[in-house]
Structure formats: C-alpha cells, structure tokens
C-alpha cells in the first residue's frame, strides 16, 4: 500500500506504479488548482473576519492576520493529506468545505461577540464557543486525514456493511431509548448523549454508517429489487417481500420522529434511503411508494403529536403565533433578519444575530442571510450546490456500483440537509431543527461531515485516477486481433 499512494478503480492498489514512469501521459491531479482555491477561501475568510472586527468596532491587529494564516495552515495540512493519500481527488470539494467551515467559524465568533455577557434565565452566562469550534475543526481535519490514510479504497467499506448498519441503527436510536441523565432532552429533541463533559449527537455519525450499510446492501441485493411485481398505473411495483428494507427504514424514521422528536433527522434519513433505493433500482416506483409512506406517516404524526402540529402552525403563520411559547418567534426573527438584510445585507458584524434563538446552530444561515444579504445567501447556496454536484459527478464517474451508490448518497445527503435547514429557516417548509453542514456550531456534526468529505474525496480519487497504466500504445495489438474476453457477470 505504501508503495503506491494511488488507488485505482480496478484491481488491487499498487498495480499502477507505471504512472510514475511516464509523467507525460499522467492525468492531471489538479492539486495545484486546489491549493490556489484554498488560498482564495482563506483570503475570503480572513476578509470576513476583518469585516466583523471592524463592524463590531474592535481594534484591528496583526492577530487577525495570524488567525487567517493559521486557518490557511490548517487547510494546507488537509491539502497535503489529500496530496499524499488521494492525489486524484476532486479539486473543488475541499475548497468549498474550507470556505463553508471558515465562514461558519467567523459567524460563530461574530455571534459570540453579540451574545457576550448575556445572562440566561437559569443564571448561566453566555459561553463563547468559537474557539471550541476551531478545536473541533482541527479534530475534524485530523479525522479527515486519517480516513484518507486508512481507507485507501472505498470498497473496503462494503465488507463491513452489516456491521456498520447495526452500529448505525443503535447510534441513531440510542438517545431516544436511554434515560434522561445520559440522553437529555435539549430544545425539545432527545438526540444527545452526554458522556462526562462531552455531548455527542450520535445521529450525525449514524447517517454515514447507515448510508454505507444501505449502499452495500443494495449493491449485493440489487437484482432482487429490480424483479418486477405487478404493474400499476404504468409503474412496475416491487414484490411485496422486497419491500422489507423500505418498511424497515420507514419504521426507523417514525421511531426517530416519535422517540426523539427530531423531525429533521427523520426526514433526512428517509430521504437518503429513498434516493439510494432509486439509484440502485432505477425505478421511480420506489420513490412514489416511499413518498406515499412518508406522507402517510407525517399526516399521522401531525394528528397525534403536538410538537409536529406546533411546527406546522409556526410555519403557516409565524406572526400569528409570535407570542406563543414554542411558537413563531424564532422563525419570525429569522425572516425579519433576512428581510432587513435585504439584497446587500447589513454587513458582516452589523446585523442582529442575538435576536434569533439558536443563531449559531440551526439558524446560522439566517444570520448569514441577514449580514451578507441575498447576494451572500445565494452565494452560500451555490457553494453548497457546487460541493454536492462535484460529489455527484464523482459518483457518476466512479466505476464500481458501491462507489456510485455511496457517492450519490453522500452528495445527496449534504444537499438535502441544506434544503431541510435552509428551507426551514426561510419558511419554505416547516422548521425541523437540523444543522447546516460545516457552518453550524457543533462537534458531532462537523466531525461526521469531515468523514463524509473524506469518503467523497476517496470516491472522486478513484474516479479520476488513471484506470490502468497507460502502456505504450503502439505495442498493443489492434482490437480486431484480440481475443474475446469473458467478463465477469455483474454481481
């Protein structure tokens, strides 16, 4: 493994040593491009930090420059890790992440400044969290590098599919079933595990574990799902017994919704499963069926649970429920901020994030929308889109089914999560409470997402690296002279 840092799409790693001998034909790694874009991101983030400090009327010092350089250094290390362990990885993904994470750090710091000295009802004083998030970023990048190093080929994951699935399921449901002293209810949701001074959101990691499981499971059982059942309304319905996994996923979703009162995660999880099923089977029937199941579940949940009803009525008319406890205050403040920011924004550091509860987690995009305006908000969404589409492109380009499925799922997961949280913040859909990837404060979310990025980069590296050693072409016999080769039947 050490001999060749270049994983290939086929064959065992190490078979493509020849690349080093024929540099002229070597596919471009584009690592230089990545470094330039990373520097650009670091520049933007430093500028953002300067703006915050200026608008908050704090004295500017060289400290900011150091911070910017430290940030660049952090991502330069990540860049070196990619260069070393996944040189053919997509060059646009890491800079997107760096920009999002950097902007997130600046905004979290900015919210710290706004909340400085705030005393809460229980007597506790606001605790600045920006520095903690910097530590989490560093740990996240370590995890990122470790994933790249110890996972030279993403297909290794498929072998542990069932293990991952079990661990993921337990992790997802654990906070819901554990007693309150280990799994406290915070802001109405029971999704945290408290171990000593640390609070972990296992659901964030479960998301990735379950995606690996589903991708592995669907690839190995793919044929089963494509066997046609009855035709109905022009769609081939799957056979009843093949519906098992879908129903299982649906059951888990409902359990998450009921036990943990975490609507966002259940929606995200179910959406991912549906998309994986669709990609694996290429049949829209699954999506229709799944959406039907989900809508049914959602309607029943809405009828039964007050916390679901609350979210829906807050969404329908936040102003009417402005003064109700647990009502429309938060979403109204988010909309006020966004609208007051308008097209150009109040300016970084010149808005009023302290008026939005949960400004540095679920509602961080509202703060960005207020301070950077529609222009900045749109740019933010486009960065997410570039990130997700580059990931998807890698999935399309990679040659193995597992990679395609996992890559497509990971890319979709990020995009869908953005849709759920930003849609909630901007009142497109009911607010469900979920973090904005790479932006929101929170260690679990950040660490899990860095693993996700590492996996995507690993898949993109497999997609972009030269497939086979480009042997000198003149020595190859013409196609007509070659033997017919028996290719292995796809599993």
């Amino acid at each position, binding site marked *: 493994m050490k001999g060749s840092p270049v994983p290939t799409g086929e064959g065992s790693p190490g078979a493509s040593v020849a690349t080093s001998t024929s540099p002229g034909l070597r596919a471009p790694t584009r690592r230089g491009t990545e470094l330039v874009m990373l520097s650009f991101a670091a520049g933007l983030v430093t500028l953002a930090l300067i703006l915050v400090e200026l608008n908050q009327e704090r004295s500017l010092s060289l400290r900011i420059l150091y911070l910017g350089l430290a940030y660049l250094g952090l991502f330069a290390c990540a860049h070196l890790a990619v260069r070393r362990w996944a040189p053919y990885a997509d060059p646009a993904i890491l800079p997107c992440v760096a920009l999002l994470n950097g902007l997130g750090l600046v905004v979290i710091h900015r919210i710290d400044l706004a909340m400085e000295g705030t005393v809460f009802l229980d007597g506790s004083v606001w605790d600045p969290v920006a520095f903690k998030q910097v530590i989490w970023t560093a740990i996240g990048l370590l995890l990122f590098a470790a994933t790249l190093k110890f996972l030279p080929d993403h297909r290794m994951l498929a072998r542990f599919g069932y293990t991952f699935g079990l661990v993921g399921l337990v992790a997802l449901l654990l906070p819901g079933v554990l007693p309150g002293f280990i799994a406290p209810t915070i802001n109405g949701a029971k999704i945290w595990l408290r171990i000593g001074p640390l609070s972990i959101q296992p659901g964030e990691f479960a998301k990735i574990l379950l995606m690996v499981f589903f991708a592995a499971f669907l690839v190995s059982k793919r044929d089963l799902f494509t066997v046609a059942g009855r035709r109905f309304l022009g769609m081939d319905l799957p056979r009843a017994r093949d519906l098992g996994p879908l129903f299982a996923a649906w059951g888990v979703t409902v359990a998450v919704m009921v036990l943990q009162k975490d609507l966002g995660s259940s929606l995200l999880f179910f959406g991912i499963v549906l998309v994986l099923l*669709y*990609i694996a089977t290429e049949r829209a029937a699954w999506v229709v069926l799944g959406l039907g199941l989900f809508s049914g579940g959602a309607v029943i949940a809405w009828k039964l649970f007050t916390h679901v009803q609350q979210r829906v009525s807050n969404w329908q008319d936040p102003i009417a429920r402005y003064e109700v406890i647990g009502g429309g205050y938060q979403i109204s403040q988010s909309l006020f901020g966004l609208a*007051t920011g308008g097209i150009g924004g109040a300016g970084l550091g010149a808005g009023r994030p302290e008026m939005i509860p949960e400004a540095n987690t679920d509602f961080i995009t509202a703060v960005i929308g207020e301070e950077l305006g529609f222009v900045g908000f749109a740019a933010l969404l486009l960065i997410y*889109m570039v990130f997700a589409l580059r990931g998807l492109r890698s999935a399309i380009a990679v040659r193995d089914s597992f990679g*395609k*499925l996992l890559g497509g799922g990971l890319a979709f997961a990020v995009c869908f999560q953005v849709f759920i949280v930003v849609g909630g913040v901007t*009142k497109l859909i009911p607010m469900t409470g979920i973090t904005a990837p790479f932006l929101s404060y929170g260690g679990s979310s950040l660490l899990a997402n860095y693993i996700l990025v590492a996996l995507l980069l690993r898949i993109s590296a497999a997609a972009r690296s030269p497939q086979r050693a480009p042997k000198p072409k003149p020595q190859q016999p013409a196609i007509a002279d070659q033997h017919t080769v028996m290719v292995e039947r796809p599993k």
Partner: protein
Amino acid sequence: MNTPLRRVGMAMMVMILLLLGNATWVQVINADEWRKNAYNKRVLLDEYARKRGLITVADGTVIADVKETTDRLRFLRTYNNGPVYAPVTGYLSVTYGTSGMERAENDLLNGSDDRLLARRISALITGRDPVGGNVQLTLDSKVQQVAYDQLTAKGFTGSVVAIKPETGEILAMVSTPSYDPNALASHDVKAQAEAWTQLTSKDANDPLVNRATQALYPAGSTLKVVVAAAALADGKNKDSQYTAKGTVKLPNTQTDLPNFNGTPCGPGETVSMETALAKSCNTAFGEMAGQVGASKLRRQAEKFGFNDQDLRIPLAVEPSTLGAIPDDAALWQTGIGQRDVLITPLENAVVAATIANGGKRMHPYLVSKLLGPDLKSIGDTEPDEVETAMSSANAAALRDMMIQSEINTGGEGRLQNVQVASKTGTAEHGAKPLENKPHAWYIAFAPAQKPEIAIAVIVEDGGDRGLGATGGKVAAPIGRAVMNAYLAGR
C-alpha cells in the same frame, strides 16, 4: 446507475433553485412586509445606534435630547419637561414604537431622510457615525407652560391650542392628563412595560392621546361663529333679526330647542344676530342655520377646515365634521353645535385664527425649521394660506360680534387693556345630556383689532364645576391666561 444519478443531480439543483427562489421572495420581493412588521425591532435598533436629532422649541430650548449610554442601545432619548410637551413630541420606545413628532419626523430625526443624503455619504467617507437632523418647533415655551399649568392646576382633563393667526404657527398645544415620555424611552424594558401598563390602564384616562388633534368633541355654542359666518356670506348682517323666544319646537317635531335656562333672548319678538351671538341664543341660531340651509352651512364649515381628511401639521389630525344632517330638525341642532357635530380643539383654534386673520385660513403647523446635524437649515416652513373662508368685511363684522360676546361672558381673568374677541361653548354630550357634565369651550383671539394669538380651550366634563359648568366660567379663564402670557411676553 448513471441515469438515476443524473436525475438525482437534477433534483438537487431543483432544491437549491427552490431555496434561491424562496430567498428572493423573502429578502427582495416581499422584504418590506417583514421589515416593517411591528414585531421587527431591527430597524428601530439600528436607529438607536445612530445619534438621533433633537427637537427644540422656537427659542431653541431643547425638549427632546439624546444621551450616550453604555448599554447595547447606544443612545437614550431624554425629554426635558416631558409632560408639558409630550402631546407634541410623542415618545420613542424600543418596545412600543413611536408617536407624535417622533413618528411624524422620524426619517429626519433618525437621519434616513433623503435631504440628509449628502451628509450621510460624507459621514460614510470620513468614517464618522451618521447623525440625525434636528426639528425646530413653532411652540412658544412660555405659552406652552402657562397652558399646561392652567389645565393641570385644577386637575382638568382637556386641551389648549394656540395659533398665530397671521401665519398658522402653533404657539401652544397641550393635552391633559399628560405623561412623561422618558418612562417609555427608557432602555430598561421592564420599566418601559410598567409605564406602558400604567398609561394604558382604564384609570389613566388616555394620557397617550393627544386630545388637541385626536379627540373629537361636540362643538357646542362655539360653532355659532361658523353659523354666523355662513349667514353673513348668505347676505345677512349683524342687525338681521331672528327669533328671541326662550324655547322653540324643532321643525316637524315636538322636541324643544331651549335657550340656556329657557331664557328669552331679548324683550321683543326678535333679536339681532349680534345680540344672539353675544348671549349665545340657541333658538336664534337654530333658526339661522335653518335659513342658511345644510349645504351652505357645510360649505362654510369646510372653508374653515372641517372634513380635511389628510391634514398634517405634521402630526395627523382627526377630521372635524358637522355630521349627517338628514332633516331640518337636525339642521337646527347642528346650528348650535350639537347633534352630530364633532370638532378637534385644533380645528376650533383654526376657526378662531381664521376669523382673526380677516377670513384667510392659514395652514396650521408645528415645525418651523428642519435642521441638518450641522444646524444648517434644510427646510423652513413657509406660512401657507389654504383658502379664504370669509370676506374681510364679514370677518370684521364677526369679530365685532365676538367682542360683544367676550364682554357678555363671565369668568375670571379678563385681560386688562387688551380687547378680546371670543365665543364660549357649553357642549352637552352623552346619551342623557342633562345628567352628563358638559364640556366647557372657549375660543378667542387678541388683540381683537390686530390679532396675534388665537386660542381654543376645552375642559372635559365641566372641570371643577360639574353640571353647572359653562364655557365662560371654566374654560375662559384658562384661555385668557394663555393669551395674556403671550401678549405680555412680547
């Protein structure tokens, strides 16, 4: 698998496009609705971060000041002599918004007015904080203080408005009970809420309402000057004869229209317009209104400023009205300022000022100058003649009749060496007029030959005289003291 992957890609793009479209709706197209929502304190907070302009009275005394603070709202609005000026300044509150001049001239005071644009840009370039413009009022501090003291000395609920007839400048505008706007401007949200609860409680008697511009009262006998003006315009003169009976029946009804105490207006069958006005005879003015007719009476009232739906001084003013006049009985009652006649103290002062100004109605105004932060004027209010309500000859005739009325009016505090023209009113109100204490009115101007101040005074519910109150006994002394304060101070 690539086909479904591509479709998922499309779905992802659609999701982002939906978010972008929704953001466009919230932040651009529909932004104003959210921005201007009453719950949105961001705009207000931004204003607090800017040094708000001052409000000063005519002699330069600052009545609304700003103080820099150390809390999150950088500037605290402070009001000097708050209750005296509160009806004009209004309040500026983080929680409860703005009122009065704080609202009417908000753009200038907070510095967002277009006329301050050049200064804003230069502030941006030089890096200084943008500052709001200042508002200089027409109010005369001495007259305002006397008017306030007069009303509050006996705990009256009511209002005084004083206008300079020649220009329309408002010299005093008082409304009682008043309040201290400092309590609402406090940065302590709790103190604000306490003050607000107390001011809006039932027992507080609506201190936040500026009675001068917002309260509508039956005009009572003060409307007789409008009826007389209509009759004069109709070709009558001060010697025209009207019935002198103590009581008449309203046309086509069995309802009595009595004079005050049912007293006949004179010894004979008829009495002159001059005497009828001086003695405030209801029977004569009922008949006079009947002769003039509803449409001419209404036209005359409108010439005096009734029914002006969008009068801004720049505070918004409730339009005064004669009400519907369905039949002759209603017309006769309207002739003595009862029935559905509703008038603001400001409008009644405008009536007095218009007669004083030879029949020319001037637009009443409170703001004499708008000043930039550098105290350079960016807009002086020029006196504006709205229309000629009466010919100067008729105005002079009416003035002479009002001089007789003043001579005939009792009450204390008659002005020495200054001739006053006035009309009192004792306005009945409520469902049972004879059991409700009447409102006491007094409108006047002085000196009669060369008027420099016109006033309207109302004291609600008879002041300290209860059922026996009259305009002459309760309101006239206040009006005279106010005019005296102005005339003596020159």
